[in-house]
């Protein structure tokens, strides 16, 4: 059995999507879906399934468990830019040493940890197009330029 980290954040299945909103007044997108546009205050919001593909805008690796997090470390963390004109904070697949600015990325749904009922808790992450469906080795993170 599986459960999701929060209802309504994303769709699951073969072709998962993040679920955001599109503002009927200013036309801009946001994520997660809100009742009010976070850029112009309009309440003319329609649900929008966001593009599965985007480009890498920034990345690092989290090496110690943040507050409230029960999964493994290290894990990738960064920002992916979507064609809707949106930058999204996201987990990234790890390792991150071959990441580059503007690298094509795509969405996948992954298990965070197992909850008290034995269910896998699912969340979203982005992974380089090249990595998908491959088993990748774990290793040290390296997001900056030394």
């Amino acid at each position, binding site marked *: 059995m599986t459960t999701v*980290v*929060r209802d309504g*954040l994303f769709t699951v299945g073969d072709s998962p999507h993040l679920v*955001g909103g599109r503002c009927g007044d200013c036309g*801009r*997108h*946001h*994520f*997660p879906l809100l009742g009010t546009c*976070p*850029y112009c205050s309009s309440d003319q919001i329609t649900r929008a399934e966001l593009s599965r593909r985007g480009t890498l805008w*920034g*990345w*690092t*690796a*989290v*090496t*110690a*468990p*943040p*507050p*409230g*997090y*029960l*999964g493994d470390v290290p*894990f990738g*963390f*960064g*920002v992916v*830019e*979507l064609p809707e*004109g*949106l*930058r*999204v*904070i996201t*987990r990234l697949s790890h390792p*991150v040493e071959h990441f580059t*600015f503007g690298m094509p990325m795509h969405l996948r749904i992954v298990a*965070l940890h197992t909850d008290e009922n034995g269910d896998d*808790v699912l*969340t979203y992450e982005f992974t380089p197009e090249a990595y998908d469906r491959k088993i990748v080795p774990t290793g040290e*993170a*390296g*997001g*900056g*330029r*030394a």
Partner: protein
Amino acid sequence: MTRVEITGIGLHPFGRFDGTSVTEMGVVAVRHALADAGIGRGGFQAAFCGAVYAGVAAGHKVLDSMGMTGMPIVDVEAGCASGGAALMLAAGAIRAGQYDTVLVYGVEKMPKGIIRSSFFEPWREQAGLAATPAYFALRAQRLMRESGVTKHHLASVVVKNRRNGVNNPDAMFRKDVTAADVLASRVVCEPLHLWMLCSPNEGAAAVVLRKGSGGGVELAAAALRSHLPGSVLGEATPMSGLATDDITPPTSLAARAAYEEAGVGPDELDVVECQDTDAARELLSYEELGLCNPGDAAKLVETGATEMTGRLPVNPSGGLLSKGEPLGASALGQVVELTRQLRGDAGPRQVEGARLALSHTVGRGANACVTIIRR
């Protein structure tokens, strides 16, 4: 416009003080500030206290334990800018003619380790997205990309601030470090190493403001601003933002308002205390405060301009990297330092002839506060 003066300053050192309550630290800072201003009970008509994690009635408990209550006491929260917000409100109330003299203080006793706060929603915590240092790291990575900053520039900020901190008896860390030491410290979130990050800690600071009669140190501006919508790596840490780099950050908004209020420009400044939550945050502040052009933070640090011996020393107190960051107190700690500088009382860390100074904090909310003082 009514002139507002800083007539008293006081500090409880920043650090870890296991046996001391947050109230007791506040009492030490307030007692010093009142003595410095030459006033006692009845000498001020209102009190504003910056506090973030100190719990309900934090400011009241300080004055209650000194037998000094009766006037309005307001606790103010604006994240890292809390003390600056309190200062802004106090100055406004004096200008409105509500009070002649106001006590402004900030107190904090941060929990050790990563701060668990209600800032993030539960699902974000569960997904590992409440990783505060990771946001700092991404901001640093983008600055490195856009301003030619390297890890060596980051290390040099730490070296500078720690060296300044050696001369500050109120700082938590008072040992010189080398760039090699900094780069040898553990990676927290690439590109940030442990020693490039400040420590949340404990302390208190206090300032007495008075309707001015001329002379002394003037509070020329205190401007608070929140973030504009849309910036994904702004201190508000939303889950998404717009794909644009044209959103003015809150520090720039507050700086512009402060320069306008004081009628000065960044090129006239003699000394600056700025938010160095991490080493990259200090460099970003150079650009956002207009101390250099956008993209020139690396160049500015290479010229040595912000060293004690440079044309515009930044963080002569040692900054948060040396002092640690007691949220409610840190902004007022900067104002205490700069008042000492303008009085010529800063001892071995004195910036000679300093007459115009700027302090800057920014953090959760998001909020940024910029204060300008002069003599």
